[in-house]
């Protein structure tokens, strides 16, 4: 029988051990000695000042950047939703969502089923034949999330996905994201620069400052968090104090 620590380690889907990242041009230490364990099914938010290293950390988990030192243990099937969607402008919404599936040697009917499933989940079925240029910012982001989810990832990474959207669209997408997270039980790691957003979504908020983890906050409020009034603001203020310290 495994002991408690082994059991915890078994439930962890991502392990970062003493991870550092040094860029050569320009010479800059982006991450220093990062230690972080992420449990399967957890919703984590990385926040911090610009240039603090949160996007670099996300990209290391995604496999888009290679750590200079340390060890990263992560599953193979990691997917990502990008800021602004990062949709291919020459492909329709349907084709964009099918993009990752087409690389997996699936049959056309299977691809169609999966694409339509996630388009429906993101309320974008009616836009399947539109091109990205014909969509609003929020709709593009929905397609980006559908594309990321369609490959059935163990971990969904999100790089400031709502930063360019208006408040109403952002609130709608927050609600949808929480629903998807609960329904699919995916592990979600999201980068945000908004403390309120992090508190309203994540189970744990990781504050990254000066290239390292400054503090990790557990958020234990029930959802929907913004309706929790003072308790929500209390958690926001607690993180804000550390953020600006």
């Amino acid at each position: 029988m495994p002991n408690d620590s082994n059991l915890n380690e078994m439930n962890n889907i991502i392990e970062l051990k003493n991870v550092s990242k040094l860029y050569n041009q320009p010479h800059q230490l982006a991450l220093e000695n990062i230690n972080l364990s992420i449990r399967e099914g957890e919703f984590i938010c990385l926040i911090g000042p610009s240039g603090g290293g949160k996007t670099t950390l996300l990209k290391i988990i995604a496999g888009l950047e290679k750590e200079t030192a340390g060890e990263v243990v992560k599953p193979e099937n990691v997917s990502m939703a990008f800021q602004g969607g990062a949709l291919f402008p020459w492909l329709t919404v349907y084709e964009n969502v099918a993009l990752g599936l087409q690389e997996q040697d699936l049959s056309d009917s299977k691809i169609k089923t999966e694409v339509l499933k996630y388009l429906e989940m993101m309320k974008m079925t009616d836009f399947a034949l539109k091109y990205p240029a014909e969509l609003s910012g929020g709709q593009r982001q929905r397609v980006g999330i559908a594309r990321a989810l369609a490959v059935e990832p163990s971990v969904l990474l999100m790089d400031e996905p709502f930063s360019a959207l208006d408040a109403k669209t952002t609130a709608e997408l927050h609600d949808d994201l929480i629903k998807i997270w609960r329904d699919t039980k995916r592990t979600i790691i999201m980068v945000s620069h908004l403390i309120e957003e992090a508190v309203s979504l994540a189970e744990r908020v990781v504050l990254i400052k000066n290239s390292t983890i400054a503090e990790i906050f557990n958020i234990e409020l029930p959802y929907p968090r913004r309706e929790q009034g003072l308790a929500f603001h209390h958690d926001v203020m607690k993180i804000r104090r550390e953020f600006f310290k």
Partner: protein
Amino acid sequence: MKSTPHIAHRHRHSAISYPISLSQRLYTFFVGPLLVVLILFIVVKFFSGSSFAIVEKFSLDDLVKALLATSLRLLIAYILALVVAVPLALFATSSRSAETIFLPVFDILESVPALAFFPILIVFFVRLDFLNGAAIFILFLSMLWNIVFTLVGGLKIIPKDIKDAAQIFGIRGWNYFRKVLLPAIFPELVTGSILAVAQGWNITIIAEVLHVYIPGGNASHDLFGIGSILVQAASGGKTDLFIVALVLMVLMIALLNFFLWQKLLRYAERFKFE
């Protein structure tokens, strides 16, 4: 931020504008070429004192055949330039060190006038008894760098997120070229092609008149084409022949512009990143 020479090229090339509104399109496709033809007609009527009868040995059929011969040379040179330019641009932007090494070399090579190679090329192709090869090669050289530099510019502005998304979704190798790179640089491919073919039309005037570069050469060494007819007509004082040949060439360029390039430019809009 310091602007590198290849980026400067990109800015220069992408400065091309094309008509958007219906009236602008009508002007570019119909009114513009018609005005050119009308002006040329008036010039011939009033200054040459002769009709449009084709002088001496050239009939209208011959002129059309000459135009087609020139167009075929341009097409072959363009295809060759495209086939060489795409891998060159991809290779030159494949890594930071490749950029550092190859882009300055390309800048220098582009600066060397293509025609400087012409006398040597002709000697080579005369030995092979393949004078068309000399013309096609010089047209190829004159087109190549226009395409290479616009493609380099296009490759360098592909958003990082798009490349990252391709990597995340496992698009690699040939699929990466086919599904990501080629569509991403399609607008630049069209722009570069327009510039290259325009440059080709310019050079054709010289590329077909080979006798100038052959020691003891005469008009029989020239290639049959609209470029050599223009030069012969101009040097022989045959104004009416010159005008008709010129009008045919302008018409061909206008038709290409209308039926090919403008349609491709409009289609390329879909491929542009915001």
